[in-house]
């Protein structure tokens, strides 16, 4: 069990890294894109707005944590 947990932790750490908020926000932004596209609304603009914002917030979180 501890081995499985450790592997799970390593995978989590490898993919998500030290900023899980960023990972959740990326999933939410793609979710919004999917919902808008499904409703027939133009949705390509969501990620170009979200990505710079997420990068900026991620940098700010690191600086605040210092």
């Amino acid at each position, binding site marked *: 069990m501890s081995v499985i947990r450790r592997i799970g932790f390593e995978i989590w750490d*490898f993919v998500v890294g030290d*900023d899980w908020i960023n990972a959740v926000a*990326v999933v939410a932004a793609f979710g919004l894109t*999917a919902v808008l596209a*499904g409703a027939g609304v133009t949705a*390509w603009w969501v990620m170009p707005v979200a990505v710079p914002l997420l990068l900026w917030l991620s940098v700010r979180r*690191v600086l605040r944590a210092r």
Partner: protein
Amino acid sequence: MSGAEIGLALSVFLACAVEAVEALTIVLAVGTTRSWSSALSGVGAATIVLCVVVAAVGPALTSLPIGVLRLIVGGLLLIFGIQWLRKAVLRASGLKALHDEAAEFDEQRAAARAAGAGGGSFDGYSFTLAFKGVLLEGLEVVFIVLTFGANQHHVGIAAIAAGVAVAAVVVLGLAARTPLARVPENTMKFAVGVMLSSFGMFWGTEGAGASWPGSDAALLVIVPAVALFSIGLVWLLRREQETAEMSTAVSAPAALVEPEEVRV
């Protein structure tokens, strides 16, 4: 070769070269300090594990429907890319120490010397360190090759780009017998962060069901836009730092002068 294929090959080459430089530093440090045979055994064992991962994950990825694949891969690349880009922006703006292969090499060698000598001809320390280093850096290479390659149905091009990058780094490293400190690693990481984020954004959006204006040509706008935004962020952070340093410099003499003024 189309523009997207060149972008794929370039991104994979840069990412794999950076990872290979980091793995090489670890292997060189333990190899030159302790035991080459044990370190190379570690490299071999890690390579076998990586091959198993490719054999297991590769076909599973390529068998997914293209929409699902693009959404999953786009999401993973973007999460990964923003992490790379954040570190690169912090390094370029001077808020995080630059990655220094020479310092890393010295640190690894000191740790290798400090660790007790192993009994017998097999050195467990060298094996474990080389194994872990190659496996962890190699997993990132595998991840990038599979995601980029599977998404564009060009795993072959991605694998060739990765192979050329790793071979070039290994040949240069073995010829020099020192870490490749002159490789512009921080700049390369910045470029890789831009590419991962841009391709992640592009594929994820398409996987979510939206269409880019201009289709693939949108990448010609997305990549420069992400790069420009990141460079702008570096400039902004540097300015903030300079302003903070100036205000500290101004307030420090004022604090020294104040008691004098009170006395007068």
